[in-house]
């Protein structure tokens, strides 16, 4: 009997679910080439590199041809600024949460200590409470803290503490740590400690052993944790929504703002670029990871 034999109904269901998963993505990308500005109907791809006629006999110059909306997007300063914020937040919070989460994974996998139960429980909290609850809590914390500090230090005008990039970064670190810890800890559980003992027997001290033996061996886990933290940060809407301030708009927040007003194929172009970039990053990281193992 073929062990991989699956019932035809399972195969049909699988194809339908894949179809369900992909149809929105395909539509998003397709509509980013739409020649209709209102983006309600798909009126075909922009096919010429010159003046194009839009609704209401509006003539628009389109030197980029089919990539008209991508060119418009690249001229949109708000988008570029939001993209810059999103990447800054994601990179900083990924680095810090990966380091802190890896340390915690070591503590939990190898040591007995007093705060153990408390830390195990608190690491599960972000998984079992809705994000909005955490977002609201952090919003209250910062707004009360900043009001207090601004009053006691007599801050005025631009000096006043307010929500912004740093509050978003702090909250992203906080919600990423538990996920990094879970992933790295899973890796550490299969770790054969005799490699470390061998290194120490051969005269390496703790630091050398860690850098030359332990770290390379758990690197796939650490990278997987970092990738998870990075995508969580890029994707986050709810917590960012409550902890961001003026000038610290991220892409998801920007898109949400747009959707409540007007929708042009620029949003689709943004989505297409986003998918492409994330795919490139993921591919690169997977390459890196498979070379490590």
């Amino acid at each position: 009997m073929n062990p991989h034999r699956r019932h035809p109904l399972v195969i049909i269901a699988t194809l339908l679910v894949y179809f369900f998963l992909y149809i929105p993505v395909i539509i998003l990308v397709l509509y980013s080439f739409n020649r209709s500005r209102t983006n309600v109907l798909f009126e075909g791809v922009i096919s010429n590199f010159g003046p194009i006629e839009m609704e209401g006999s509006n003539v628009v110059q389109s030197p980029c041809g089919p990539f008209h909306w991508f060119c418009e997007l690249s001229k949109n300063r708000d988008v570029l600024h939001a993209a810059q914020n999103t990447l800054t937040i994601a990179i900083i919070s990924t680095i810090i949460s990966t380091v802190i989460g890896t340390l915690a994974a070591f503590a939990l996998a190898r040591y007995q200590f007093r705060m153990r139960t408390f830390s195990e429980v608190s690491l599960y909290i972000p998984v079992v409470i809705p994000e909005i609850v955490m977002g609201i809590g952090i919003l209250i914390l910062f707004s009360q803290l900043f009001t207090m500090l601004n009053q006691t230090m007599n801050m005025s005008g631009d000096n006043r503490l307010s929500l912004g990039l740093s509050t978003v970064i702090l909250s992203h670190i906080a919600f990423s740590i538990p996920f990094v810890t879970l992933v790295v800890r899973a890796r550490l559980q299969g770790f054969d400690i005799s490699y470390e003992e061998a290194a120490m027997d051969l005269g390496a001290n703790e630091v050398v052993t860690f850098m030359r033996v332990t770290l390379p061996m758990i690197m796939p886990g650490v990278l997987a944790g970092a990738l998870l933290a990075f995508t969580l940060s890029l994707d986050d809407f709810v917590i960012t929504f409550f902890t961001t301030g003026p000038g610290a708009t991220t892409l998801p927040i920007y898109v949400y703002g747009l959707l409540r007003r007007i929708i042009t194929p620029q949003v689709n172009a943004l989505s297409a670029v986003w998918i492409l970039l994330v795919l490139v990053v993921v591919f690169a990281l997977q390459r890196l990871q498979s070379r490590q193992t």
Partner: protein
Amino acid sequence: MIRRLREKKSLQGNLLISPTMIFMVGMLVIPLLLTAVVSFGRRAPDGDVIFTFSLDNYARLSGLRTNCEDGSRLCFDPIYAQILWRSISLAFNTTVLVILLAYPLAYFIARAPAKRRNTYLFLVLVPMWTNFVIRVYAWLMILRTQGVLNNFLGSLAGLLNLHFTPLEMIYTPGAVLVGMVYEFLPFMILPIYTSIEKIDNSLFEAAADLGANPIRTLRRITLPLSMPGMVAGTILVFVPVMGTFIVSDLLGGRQVILVGNLIQNQFLIARDPTFGSAASLVLMVLTLIVTFIYTRKFGFGEEIVSA
């Protein structure tokens, strides 16, 4: 100092865990306690918080009111109870639908030849890497009255010479349900896949040798052994659905108001953080109760890590 550190294992453990603890206490425990404190406060006219001990916000959430239109001293206004109930039933329906869609796919991948599994899983993840908000937008484009689906159906009807009136799909509970299912489907596929993949192949062979038909094998082997995956997936789906407000905001409009929308509205529009905090705490307690009962009954698998 360094020698002491080398010798004391518990000191090392505490040192390694302390940065995490600083973040967990500062950004999770203290904020949750503050939310509780604020929820017992009263709203100042300027939208600030007056710290006191009042249960007014909870009374308001429960629907009990003292200033009634008909002049009686106590009356019941079910609006918030309805919002809570709507959120719970939506989260429940989403979870059930997601399990039904995820299971065959997860089974298909887990029973595929080993070298193909990663590709199939990768294909599940790609749509998830578009942004959460963008995925809701995709469904907005599809379900709008003049959207992709109605256009498709319209041209289909045109081919068959049928009369077609566009369906009103957007701003309905159904639209929100579809959006939620789409957003959280991968969170169910991954843990179920992990638990089916772990099942020893010889069990399936034995079942076949002993003459069990596919349905019996599913009921007696696959389903029971993949239970941990379903439990983990249920938590990963149910909890976020309870608190999400963008999906209902963009696909449900004013027709489908959930707890998340209520909380967001209190902080950004109504400017009553005390009532918003009370709603937030009630939401947290509700999800904790549900997950607690559920994990008590079915156990808590390590599958939660896989997602």
